[in-house]
């Protein structure tokens, strides 16, 4: 039991970090923010799912995907398709030439529901699809790429191109997808109005709970042998291969996990915001999501959540106050994080804040039961060691996974 606890929560420190995050999400923010701001926070937290997935894929697996928006979008679209069908009942759409199909289909002269929309009448099918569709998609991409040992930069560029294709496709096939407008005007879930304040509270807490769930799953992965293998692979792929492991299957696995997490985020986004559009599938949002992970610290699951929250709060704040400044700031953030703080907030925490807290606790030892009062970003269990060395290991990683599609023997 003790072992399981350590695995899931990463020992005492991990548990404290998780507890602080949970308190922030479930207690502090609902108490301080009104429903409008809280709904915004809920939206930001859906990006955190993607960022957590990226910590696993990129931080641990060394696989940088610039197409995570695809999975976020696919998950969101699966959810939106169900909601859209529910709000397109024959009664509510009787002014259309074909009642009972979504409005945008009617505008595009479709006279019957396309076959692939049919199963989305069922909630259980839709919920399975939210996970399964992006996962299958990720599986196909990653098997094709990793079995051929396409990695590193090439993988990043190709995922980007796939995201571009998917965007053009969704926009072009507007009769089936809603085109550039996306799927809008979603109202109820099984008769439950998702637009009310009460529903927003419920969805917010559900979102938070799922997020914590994803962090726990992520912890489970990185504390298992699989997590150690991912790190080992990142640094010495050949050695892992010649220790009898099928390296590509591990990459496929972690990429699919990342995709599934993104998809859950997408579905929760649809529920909380009330629509889904191709603007999440494309290149720009996909890269922005990478920066959330980078700001939080690419090796820290909890850091990813803070990264998503902080960047988005900053975005909202600056775009309200200094719209023109925002892009400078965002661009500067990319550069600063990469050049000065490759380990993001989590790295800053371990190298600057944690030693002080430790010293403080040391100094007051015996002074009672202490927890840090500031919402700091504690490290994940495996990270303390890895965090300090990342600048160097980033170099070796890039050499291992780098330009050549096959590892070179130098």
């Amino acid at each position, binding site marked *: 039991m003790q072992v399981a606890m350590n695995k899931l929560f990463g020992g005492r420190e991990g548990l404290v970090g998780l507890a602080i995050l949970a308190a922030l999400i479930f207690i502090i923010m609902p108490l301080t923010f009104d429903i409008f701001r809280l709904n915004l926070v809920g939206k930001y937290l859906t990006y955190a799912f993607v960022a957590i997935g990226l910590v696993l894929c990129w931080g641990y697996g060394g696989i940088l995907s610039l197409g995570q928006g695809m999975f976020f979008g696919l998950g969101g679209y699966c959810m939106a398709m169900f909601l859209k069908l529910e709000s397109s009942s024959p009664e509510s759409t009787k002014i259309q030439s074909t009642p009972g199909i979504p409005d945008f289909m009617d505008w595009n002269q479709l006279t019957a529901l396309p076959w692939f929309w049919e199963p989305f009448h069922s909630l259980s099918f839709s919920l399975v699809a939210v996970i399964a569709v992006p996962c299958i998609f990720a599986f196909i991409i990653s098997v094709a790429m990793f079995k051929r040992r396409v990695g590193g930069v090439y993988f990043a560029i190709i995922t980007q191109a796939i995201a571009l294709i998917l965007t053009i496709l969704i926009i072009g096939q507007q009769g089936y997808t809603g085109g550039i407008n996306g799927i809008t005007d979603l109202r109820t879930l099984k008769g439950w109005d998702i637009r009310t304040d009460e529903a927003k509270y419920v969805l917010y807490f559900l979102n938070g709970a799922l997020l914590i769930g994803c962090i726990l799953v992520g912890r489970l992965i990185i504390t298992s042998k*699989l997590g*150690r293998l991912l790190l*080992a692979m990142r640094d010495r792929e050949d*050695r892992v291969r010649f220790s009898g*492991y099928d390296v590509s299957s*591990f990459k496929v696995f972690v990429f699919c996990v990342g995709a599934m997490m993104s998809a859950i985020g997408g579905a929760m986004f649809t529920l909380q915001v009330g629509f889904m559009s191709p603007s999440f599938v494309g290149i720009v949002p996909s890269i922005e999501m990478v920066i959330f992970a980078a700001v939080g610290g690419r090796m820290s699951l909890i850091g990813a959540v803070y990264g998503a929250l902080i960047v988005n709060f900053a975005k909202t704040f600056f775009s309200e106050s200094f719209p023109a400044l925002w892009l400078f700031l965002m661009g500067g953030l990319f550069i600063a994080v990469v050049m000065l703080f490759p380990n993001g907030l989590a790295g800053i925490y371990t190298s600057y804040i944690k030693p002080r807290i430790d010293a403080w606790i040391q100094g007051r030892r015996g002074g009672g039961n202490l927890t840090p009062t500031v919402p700091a970003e504690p490290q994940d269990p495996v990270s303390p*060691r890895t965090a300090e060395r990342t600048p160097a290991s980033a170099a070796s990683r890039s050499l291992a996974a780098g330009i050549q599609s096959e590892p070179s023997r130098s």
Partner: protein
Amino acid sequence: MSSNTDFVLSIEDLTVSFDGFKAVDKLNLYVDKNEIRVVIGPNGAGKTTVLDLICGKTRATSGSIKFKDLELTRMSEHQIVRAGVGRKFQNPSIYENLTVFENLEISYPKGRSVFGALAFKRTAEVVARVEEIAREIMLDEFLGTEAGLLSHGQKQWLEIGMLLIQDPELLMLDEPVAGMSARERELTGQLLRRICTNRSVLVIEHDMEFVKNIAHKVTVLHQGKILKEGSMEMVQSDPKVIEVYLGH
């Protein structure tokens, strides 16, 4: 075919060419059970390429490599490893950021599938096996040390240990004593002799003293072909071999 089964490894007509350059040319090589075979040859003779071909890192242009009854040329690297072929690289290839214990644990042949790795537990059995191997490779006092902090020789041993823990039937070592001190060389020689019971070992080495020490049989490669094969004395006295080595 019956003759093949007597050998652990039988290479027949193996050829690989890079842009027309034949690095290995119609090579035939047979390794017996429990044999320590050393491959020597001048630079560019194709020694490392042969190891690459056996372990699947490089794909053969033609020819066959049989490990017992398995045709290795059609198998992927991890399948070859799982079949019982272990390979040590020329430069120590270990996980420098993990401890010696973790290095060995990762190499422990359980939980090799994705979900196996997820469910893998550090049982008493695993710990016992890791400690046993660590003693074998003289690193039992360094189990908690980060591998990057070991000396060059110790890193080589660690990599040998990582192969040993998998208990391979064929162990391939690429220059195991390069860069070692005399004392380390001696210890490595002892180590190799200890571990070659119940398995065959294929070694590439330049250090003739060391080769003499351990080899059952020596193969001399030159320009991708076998120049001479036999006991160390026999090979050393062969005029062709002398010519190749001395460059006349």
